[in-house]
């Protein structure tokens, strides 16, 4: 803290100033502007396919009160959570190993690239044919979507560790296990957490895509249903809810990331967290 002198007495101004130091008020302002533009455009271009902002907001509130939404959320999130956890549980260790033992890289590099660029939608028919329409194929697709981020970031995390830290540990007699525990994993942690956050984003994408293209259940199922009813406000409301969930999850991931790696300066934290 650089402020000198006695602490200011009046508390509300301090609280407001602290709030202004975060990104939240500015993001809210952006939202407000977008909402106003949306409202204006939708009112002047009346169309059954384009609800106004207020209609969407109202539909969102209504939808939140309905069991149908929560059943859909429950279904969707099963695939999301399981697929994401599998991706992290397999992807992070795989990435760490790839980073440490670059000899393995030869065997795997091209497949990672394929996984990174392949339009996943293309393998959906394949999955359905082999695993069926059940939870398993949705989980697999979510995992496939997100695992690449976990692998590549964990690998990069190991690669960017200063080699002299490993040498230093060896001069103090560290075993390979100690080097992993005391140097490699903490050193890679910022990148691992970035990978987890990006994997979460891709998992949400995967969750919705699989429901839209393959198994119309959950959120994707709701979107398809409302589309067939031309119920645009409800359709938009589902999108809003999915987006909100994604934002919440990613904010939580970012918060955990910052808590776990306070020494790292690489992540984009709000200015005032020092």
């Amino acid at each position: 803290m650089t402020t000198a002198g006695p602490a200011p007495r009046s508390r509300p101004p301090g609280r407001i100033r602290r709030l202004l130091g975060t990104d939240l008020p500015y993001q809210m302002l952006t939202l407000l502007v977008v909402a106003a533009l949306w409202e204006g455009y939708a009112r002047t271009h009346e169309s059954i396919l384009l609800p106004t902002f207020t209609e969407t907001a109202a539909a969102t509130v209504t939808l939140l009160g309905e069991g149908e939404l929560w059943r859909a959320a429950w279904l969707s999130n099963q695939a999301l959570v399981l697929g994401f956890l599998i991706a992290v549980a397999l992807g992070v260790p795989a990435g760490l190993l790839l980073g440490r033992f670059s000899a393995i890289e030869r065997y795997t590099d091209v497949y990672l690239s394929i996984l990174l660029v392949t339009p996943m939608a293309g393998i959906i028919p394949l999955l359905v044919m082999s695993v069926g329409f059940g939870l398993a194929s949705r989980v697999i697709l979510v995992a496939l979507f997100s695992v690449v981020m976990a692998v590549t970031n964990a690998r990069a995390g190991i690669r960017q560790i200063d080699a002299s830290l490993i040498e230093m540990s060896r001069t103090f007699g560290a075993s390979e296990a100690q080097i992993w525990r005391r140097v490699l994993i903490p050193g890679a942690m910022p990148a691992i957490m970035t990978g987890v956050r990006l994997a979460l984003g891709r998992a949400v994408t995967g969750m919705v895509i699989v429901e839209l293209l393959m198994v119309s259940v959950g959120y994707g199922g709701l979107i398809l249903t409302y589309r067939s009813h031309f119920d645009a406000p409800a359709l938009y409301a589902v999108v809003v809810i999915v987006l909100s969930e994604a934002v919440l999850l990613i904010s939580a991931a970012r918060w955990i990331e910052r808590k776990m790696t306070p020494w790292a300066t690489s992540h984009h934290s709000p200015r005032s967290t020092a």
Partner: protein
Amino acid sequence: MIEITNLTKRFTGNRGGTVHALSEVDLTIADNEFVTVLGPSGCGKTTLLRALAGLTGWDEGDILVDGEPVRSPGPERAMVFQNFALLPWASVLDNVAFGLELRGEARGRRHATARELIGLVGLDGFEDRLPGELSGGMQQRVGLARALAVQPRVLLMDEPFGALDEQTRRILQQELLTIWERRRLTVVFITHSIEEAVLLGDRVVLMSPRPGRIAETVPVDIPRPRSFDLHGLGRTEEFTTLTTHLWERLRSMHPDTHPDTHPDRAGARR
């Protein structure tokens, strides 16, 4: 005592030829001696130190420390690194205690030892800071404290002050000597600074490149404790004679040296 005999290390160069990183190096270092190793880039001085540390192997010859052959890193040797090599996520206290932690010493005991050494290197009050919050000089104090914490008999220092600015380097040189005089341990100190080699060492081992070998060993008969502001020690005749001699030798082995080359230019290259 450290006995290095006939140490030779070869590796295959880019164009397939064999390069001698070290060639028939013989060197004996007495207990509590402060030896500085001086030489231009590529003379193998860092390879020699890494071999002593047990970080790298070699092709021929032996290294004995107190009669025991060196195969791997050992508890009687500790190293100080040019780039400090501190754990960025660990506090000063945990960094200093790191060597003890790796040896399985209990938290309370290793922290007590670490606090004592943090005091020795003048970092009282900085125990909870992260390395990123410290200046380069302070970071190297942490590196030195970490090495001393494991109570080594031999301290291996790889251009430890090379990354520091001139003033900080002088202060740390002085403090290193004070600590060495108090603790009595063997120091092998790599440097490319002639002044530093003479200021610190009991002996200066001059190495020459391609192949890396010992060109000359020069005893430094300047009495201790040495106090070296350049207006005192730096102006004595012994100091001038030694540094001039070493400079002549170094200049003759420098690849840029040519009869037409102005000495100032060669000197600027380091």
